[in-house]
C-alpha cells in the first residue's frame, strides 16, 4: 500500500454523493445512448439537483451519455443514474436500449459512408 494514499478518493466520493449513493441506473444506458430534453425545468421542481438541471439544459439537442459526462466532468455511471431520474420525471427522452447496432442494415452502412465521405 502506498503510504500517501488518501483515506478516500475524491474522484469516487463526489460522484456517489451526487447520485445519492446509487450506482445502478434505472434506464439501460450505455456510453453512446442519446438523451434529449422534452421539457425544461421551471426551477420550482422538488428533487432536482443542479446536475439534473445542467443535463436538461445541455440536452436541447441529442447528446450521448459520454458527452454529458465529459462536459459535466462526472463519471458516466453517475450520469446514467441522473438521466434515469430525469426520465422518470419526464424531462428527457432517452433512446430505447439498443444493445447492438443493426449490422444487417444496409441503409446504416450507406449513411455512415456518405457521412464520412462528406467530411
Amino acid at each position, binding site marked *: 500500500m502506498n503510504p500517501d494514499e488518501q483515506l478516500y478518493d475524491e474522484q469516487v466520493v463526489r460522484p456517489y454523493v451526487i447520485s445519492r449513493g446509487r450506482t445502478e441506473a434505472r434506464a439501460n444506458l*450505455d456510453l453512446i445512448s442519446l438523451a434529449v430534453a422534452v421539457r425544461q425545468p421551471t426551477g420550482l421542481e422538488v428533487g432536482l439537483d443542479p446536475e439534473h438541471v445542467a443535463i436538461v439544459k445541455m440536452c436541447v439537442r441529442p447528446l450521448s451519455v459520454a458527452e454529458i459526462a465529459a462536459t459535466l466532468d462526472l463519471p458516466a455511471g453517475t450520469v446514467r443514474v441522473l438521466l434515469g431520474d430525469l426520465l422518470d420525471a419526464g424531462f428527457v427522452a432517452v433512446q430505447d436500449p439498443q444493445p447492438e*447496432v443493426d449490422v444487417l442494415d444496409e441503409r446504416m*452502412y450507406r449513411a455512415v459512408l456518405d457521412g464520412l465521405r462528406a467530411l
Partner: protein
Amino acid sequence: MASVPSDKPHLPTPVKLLIAGGFGVGKTTMVGAVSEIRPLRTEEVLTDRSVGVDDLSGVEKKTTTTVAMDFGRISVGDDYVLYLFGTPGQERFWFVWDELAKGALGAVVLADTRRLSDCFPSVDYFERRGTPFVVAVNCFEGAPVYDLAEVKLALSLPPDIPVLLCDARRRASGKEVLITLVQHAYSKRPVASV
C-alpha cells in the same frame, strides 16, 4: 410525477467505432483529426475485484479504478451519429474494452512500425471477439518505412484484413481509414438468416 410525453422526439441512432493501439500511437490525435467536436474525455469509475496473492483470509479486495477514454463525434445525416472512442492503452483495462467493444461497428488498430508489437494485444482482442478491424500504420517522422505486406506478415494477419498507411494528424487520412473500416465491416457483415 409528471407524465412522460407519448410523442417521443426523433433521436439519431448512435454508431460506435473504436480506435485502438498501443500507448502514444496517436489514437487521440486521430480522434481529434476527424471529430466535429474537440476530443472529449469521459471517465468510468469501475470496481475491480482482485484477490491478493498473500491474502489468507479469502476476503476479496475491491479496488476502484478510474479509466479515461477520449472520444469524438461525427454527425452523419439526421438518422445516425458516429462516435469514435480511443481505447485505454493499458492492457489491464480489458474489462472496459468489453463494454466499449459491445455494439461497435468496427475498430481501427493504429500501429507504429518502431513498436509494432504494441498493437498485438489489440489485434488479438478484435480477432477473438470477431469485431471487424483494419490496421492503420501511423507514419511517424523518422520511423522506418516498411512495405505494407511486411507489416501484414509481421502481424500474421489474415489476408482479408486491410492494412493501410496513415497520418493520424490529418483529417483526410483519418477519413480514408474510417471509410476503409466501414467498407470492410460491410463486407464482413453477417448474412441475414431466414
